[in-house]
């Protein structure tokens, strides 16, 4: 078991989401930084979609009531175990009674606590993620509260993590040539032109060429961007249509909305573009107030990024297993 002993609002149990039920109005949910979840779980030897804690308000503290192996991924800050700084993106051993504390990350938005064995929660429609809109899934269908106790899954069959821990080269470093970084600190997010792109003048120049700011009206449902409004050349009446995370809509006010993990299943605003799936995590880690630019991409590029990420995760799985087996043999 773990016990939540301090938490801010809107921290939830998440996994890689609940796809496939949008036709009955069920949002996909799932982690805002799915790459951090996949890497954290892979390093521990869990299924990459095992349930984890998504922490987006800090400080957050939990107590382990049995020995466990955990990793804090996604964050650029160091977690504390009984007050001692530990590396992030690194699997560590915790003893029964030890307290894990997460502080506000220096630059990024979200941290993930992955535990060997995963969080032992009954799946709903194939997923353990919390559906805040529907009030089901995750822990009691709601954000975490002080005093919540959550079971840890069986980790007896997993290869042992060495006593001094096991870390990964984090994705922005390992995949530096795959995820471009700007020189001015704005997050670069690749997107493809979408259905109503043609309604915007000069091939959407105003959308692609400006630096947007993530407004305070942003959460797991969607990010509202602020900047110079962009207006379609024609006012169109559209029927509601299916919407997925990553879709960028332009409401009448002209400031775009990027649909995120808890996106509505349908919407009627014109769609100017769609964020490529492999770049969604970078948006998920962008804080309110931070700046971003969209970079026009292609399907071929999106596919190449996806393949590079898949190779990296596979490499983490294979190599971490090899290191654990080798150290067990030498011990």
């Amino acid at each position, binding site marked *: 078991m773990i016990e939540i002993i301090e938490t801010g609002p809107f921290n939830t149990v998440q996994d890689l989401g609940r796809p496939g039920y949008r036709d009955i109005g069920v949002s996909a949910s799932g982690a805002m930084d799915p790459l951090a979840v996949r890497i954290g779980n892979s*390093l521990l030897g869990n299924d990459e979609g095992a349930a984890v804690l998504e922490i987006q308000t800090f400080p957050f503290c939990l107590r382990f009531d049995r020995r466990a192996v955990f990793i804090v991924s996604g964050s650029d800050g160091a977690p504390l175990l009984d007050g*001692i700084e530990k*590396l992030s993106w*690194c699997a560590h051993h915790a003893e029964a009674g030890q307290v894990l504390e997460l502080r506000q990350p220096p630059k990024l938005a979200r941290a993930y606590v992955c535990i060997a064995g995963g969080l032992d929660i009954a799946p709903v429609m194939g997923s353990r993620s919390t559906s805040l809109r529907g009030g089901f899934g995750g822990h009691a269908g709601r954000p975490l509260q002080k005093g919540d106790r959550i079971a840890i899954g069986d980790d007896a069959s997993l290869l042992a993590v*060495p*006593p*001094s*821990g*096991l*870390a*990964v*080269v*984090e994705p*922005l*470093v*390992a995949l*530096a040539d795959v995820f471009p970084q700007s020189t001015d600190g704005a997050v670069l997010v690749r997107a493809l032109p979408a259905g109503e792109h043609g309604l915007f003048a000069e091939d959407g120049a105003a959308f692609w060429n400006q630096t947007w700011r993530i407004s305070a009206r942003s959460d797991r449902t969607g990010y509202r961007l602020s900047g110079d409004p962009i207006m379609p050349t024609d006012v169109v009446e559209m029927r509601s249509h299916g919407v997925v995370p990553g879709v960028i809509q332009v409401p009448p006010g002209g400031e775009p909305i990027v649909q995120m993990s808890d996106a509505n299943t349908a919407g009627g605003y014109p769609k100017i573009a769609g964020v490529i799936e492999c770049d969604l995590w970078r948006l998920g880690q962008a804080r309110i107030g931070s700046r971003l630019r969209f970079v026009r991409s292609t399907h071929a590029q999106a596919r190449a990024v996806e393949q590079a990420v898949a190779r*990296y995760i596979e*490499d*983490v799985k294979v*190599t*971490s297993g*090899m*290191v654990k087996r*080798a*150290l067990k043999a*030498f011990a």
Partner: protein
Amino acid sequence: MTSIDLTDPQTIAFLTDALTTAGVDGVEISGPSGTLRIIMSAEEKVSHAAPAPSPALSIKAPMAGIFCPPRPGSSEVPADLPRTVAAGQALGFLRLGPVLLPLAAPKAGLLTRQFVEAGALVGFGDTLFQIEPQS
């Protein structure tokens, strides 16, 4: 090679002085003319011995990998040696593809030496760091 006369008192005195200066316990020399054994007395040894150095701990590579003192991607510049380190603190990493194996300080102490250059390929058992434990 000129042979030295091991029975010559002057030679014996010279060798004894040399051993005392070097803080060596004794020497045994065998030659055609016989064997000379000089053993420094206990008193001499105590009075001339350097203060006992605290036993230094070597941190060896637990497996082969690329030696990375700071974590790849970290902008942190490690402080100059010697520097104090806490027990369990990661002194560096062995990199194997995307995986990093932390090299933890077994005890708190003074990190006095780093034996390998950053980015070097090291093998199992290679000595990477030396720590003088401090209580």
